[in-house]
């Protein structure tokens, strides 16, 4: 273990902004991609389900 305390870990030797700025943006972009993927699938399935019901109503 390289760190003496949690504060020392968070400080990243005085480079916290650069290190955590990299990690945070990467994590945020990945989270955003996963949310968008889930949203796209949900919207799509709902639309497909609706059009399927309409088809049944017609026949």
């Amino acid at each position: 273990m390289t760190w003496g305390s949690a504060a020392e870990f968070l400080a990243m030797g005085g480079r916290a902004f650069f290190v955590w700025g990299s990690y945070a943006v990467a994590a945020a972009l990945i989270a955003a991609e996963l949310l968008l993927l889930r949203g796209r699938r949900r919207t799509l399935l709902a639309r497909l389900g609706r059009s399927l019901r309409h088809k049944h109503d017609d026949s």
Partner: protein
Amino acid sequence: MNQRIFRFASPQTFYPLAGQMIPLFMTLAAVLCAVGLYIGLFVAPTDFQQGEVYRIIFIHVPAAWMSMFIYVVMAFWCAVGLAMNTRLSFMMALALAPTGALMTAVALWTGSLWGKPTWGTWWAWDARMTSELILLFLYIGFLSLHAAIDDPRRADRAAAVLALVGVVNIPIIYFSVKWWNTLHQGASVSITRAPSMARTMLWGMLIMALAAWMYSIAAALMRVRSIILERENAAEWVAQLPEVKGQ
């Protein structure tokens, strides 16, 4: 060629298969990411030259590698699609592009945050950075061109040609640090010689690269499933899917 390989080239067969593979690759990505972050943030020692800021490497290098690798895979599927006229190949290419763009954006962003404290600048128009920025524009151009053409089959072919022309940029990115005198340093890891970094740092980086790889596969599979449903929305097999029927 073997008939069984072509069977999986049908969207109908591939859709459930992709669905089964997603949890596997997501789990692998999560576990590898946890191990990689633990090594990178808690085991790897402080760098004797750069101090702690070097820990950006565990995000930067995996993202940069994936940004190039995804492009090559995307171009490969475009080539297969153009040569064999397989719809699923084009769908795979289209599914890979946004994740490739994400990796490129992460590589550029983290590179900028690493450049400021170590080189004193957020950005320089050196060969490595400029060619990586062009890679981002290639991904965006591929997606925009595809979105701009209404007929999906024509959009597939036009975007595929663009992707294939853009492949020339990949060796330029990779070898830019050798061919030109760049602000960006040369490769720390190469096949021909021993890596010039501490063993735990190297392991942390390689495990994070593997995690990024597994994540990219999972994300592309998730996206390709939506693309398949969008394109095949009139097909009977789509109407028969439990997830569609249950809506």
